[in-house]
């Protein structure tokens, strides 16, 4: 992981030293290799093998040549969603040599961050605590994010859950209205069935099974539509933000949760609408 300060310098250099870009250069085999982000390569029309000149000065003074060794896709970062990922990656010694402050005696020894992969990842918190105690002045953090109430993802999750809940309430009202109309349509049918000997529970069971089948079919159709829309939404946002970040994902867990909510809701709406009908007497059902 490269030092953030050096990243910033390199990024600033790339962004501001417009005059520092030079692509039609003779081969410079000694030029240190760098990697460019896809976005930067596209923005500046750069290709692998080309030589670019970078400077830490916004005026472009003292540019140094670097060879584009490759183009990479930056790891999607939701916290940097609105930032254009114009980045370059260096070998650490090259970056230090390029960007170190000559007046700072510790410049060659300074990095911003060190990433550590543990043999036992579960011990991350304990490792962080011990290391912080042994090396004063540093901050050691586990990458395991504790999802507190103010975590942005927790907040967004709560927001989307609230939207979904309101949508369910609205559609439940419509569903009930439709079921009421539907049960009115079948009033005479229900009356005839009662007349020929079908009991209320028997008719109710038929309504229940019918409602269950319709609710299941509707829920599955809803999940299929969600899967189709997922692709459209992801493509739209990925195009808009020029990122590989996945914005919408319908997981099996989410699909099961949706079906688990919508099926009972559909069945309940049918039952409630039909119950008011079946409570009436046979003659009332037959308009007599």
């Amino acid at each position, binding site marked *: 992981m490269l030092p953030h300060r050096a990243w910033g310098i390199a990024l600033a250099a790339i962004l501001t030293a417009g005059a520092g870009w030079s692509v039609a250069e003779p081969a410079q085999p000694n030029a240190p290799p760098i990697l460019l982000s896809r976005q930067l390569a596209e923005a500046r029309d750069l290709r692998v093998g080309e030589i670019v000149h970078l400077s830490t000065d916004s005026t472009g003074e003292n540019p140094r040549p670097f060879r584009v060794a490759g183009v990479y896709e930056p790891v999607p970062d939701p916290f940097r969603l609105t930032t254009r990922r114009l980045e370059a990656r260096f070998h650490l010694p090259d970056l230090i040599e390029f960007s170190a402050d000559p007046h*700072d005696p510790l410049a060659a020894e300074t990095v911003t961050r060190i990433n550590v992969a543990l043999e036992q990842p579960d011990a991350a918190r304990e490792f962080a605590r011990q290391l912080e105690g042994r090396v004063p*002045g540093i901050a050691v953090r586990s990458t395991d994010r504790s999802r507190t109430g103010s975590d*942005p993802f927790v907040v967004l999750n709560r927001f989307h859950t609230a939207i979904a809940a309101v*949508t369910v309430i609205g*559609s439940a009202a419509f569903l009930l*209205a439709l079921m009421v109309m539907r049960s009115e349509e079948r009033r005479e049918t229900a009356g005839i069935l009662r007349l020929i000997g079908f009991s209320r529970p028997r008719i109710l069971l038929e309504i229940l099974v019918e409602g269950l089948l319709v609710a299941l079919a509707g829920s599955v159709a809803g999940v299929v539509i969600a899967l189709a829309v997922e692709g459209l939404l992801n493509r739209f946002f990925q195009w808009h933000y020029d990122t590989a970040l996945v914005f919408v994902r319908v997981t099996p867990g989410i699909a099961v949760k949706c079906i688990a909510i919508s099926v009972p809701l559909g069945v309940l709406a049918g039952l409630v609408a039909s119950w008011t009908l079946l409570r009436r007497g046979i003659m009332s059902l037959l308009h007599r």
Partner: protein
Amino acid sequence: MRPFSFAWRSLTRQPARAVLGIAGIAVVGALLFDMLLLSRGLVVSFRDLLEGVGFDVRVTADQFVPSRGPMISDGTAVLNRLRALDEAEEVLALRFGRAWATDGERRVSMDLIGVDGNPRKTWTVIEGSRLPAYDPAAPPAILINRAVASRLGLSPGDTLPLRGDCDSRVTALPPVDFQVVGIIAFQFEARGGRSTVTTLPGYVKACDPPNREAMTLFMIASTVEAGPDSVVRAVEHVVPDLHAFTNQEFVDRLQVTDFSYFRQISFVLTTITLFFAFLLIATLLTVSVNRRLGEIAALRALGFRKKRIVADLLWESALLVGAGGLLGLPLGGLLALYLDEILRQMPGIPIGLHFFAWEPRAAITYVLLLALAGLLAAAYPVYLAARLPIAATMRREIV
């Protein structure tokens, strides 16, 4: 009987269906209204916050958001040049950094802001007094916000030992004793955020930065005669290396960058909600018409013209959508308060910033969109009713 009265009777004849339909439209309408409020809520709210501070132009080293970009190296010289501008009524210089105090064994970090100038409404003194001029013979004065005061148990008159942590160098500076002179509330204070303000010399004393002249940001209040655009032009003339922008330009930039996610989300949710509303209203009206085909055929047989039937159905749709839409406004308002409270839990959001902000344009757009949805939703049932064969329908439905 006029079409309106006819439609009214059709609805009230089946109160359960009407009430449920109106309730459903009200809930969906509330959601639609909220998405319209969200689409520009941040922009409207942030603009109000910016204008509430009392400065209308900002000057930074680059076009990054203030506090995230590089410093202005020769800050003192730039400050003098800006204060000499005829177009500038007031100039405030700010330098952002970090500091920490200890609460027993624990380290308590906070923002440290060094200022030079009249802050206007950048913060409000709740307790104590304003920041006095720097006195080299006395401990530097400091203003703290409520979060710092409650965390460290401080009041005006207390001493706050602070160590600067203002740049990326590893330093071992001794603590500097600051005199707490007041407790303040910042306009842009984040929930739970700990912030302190001192004079620039006080900041330098705490942080001992390599460049003592550097500044992060200048805020300028334009004169009434000049206005912010004139100030920007004047600043670009005297300090062409720096970046000056008005409040509106700042808001426009954030709308494209930091605020764009919520704009996009609101656009997507508005589209989905509108489609949802259209689908539900169309289904409700279509099922309703299908149930009354016999009745419609009978009316046609009695002499009601197609236009009259169409008018009846359109009025019925208008009554349903109108009543639901009207209920949707206050419901949407309440829902917006709840959703706003959820989103404001995000870290770093200023207390005064809202995601859902009222604008008349949102209500107008809401009415137009819902009316359009109602009109389009009525198209198919109206088509059904207008095209049905009278005799065949009567034979099938009535006889």
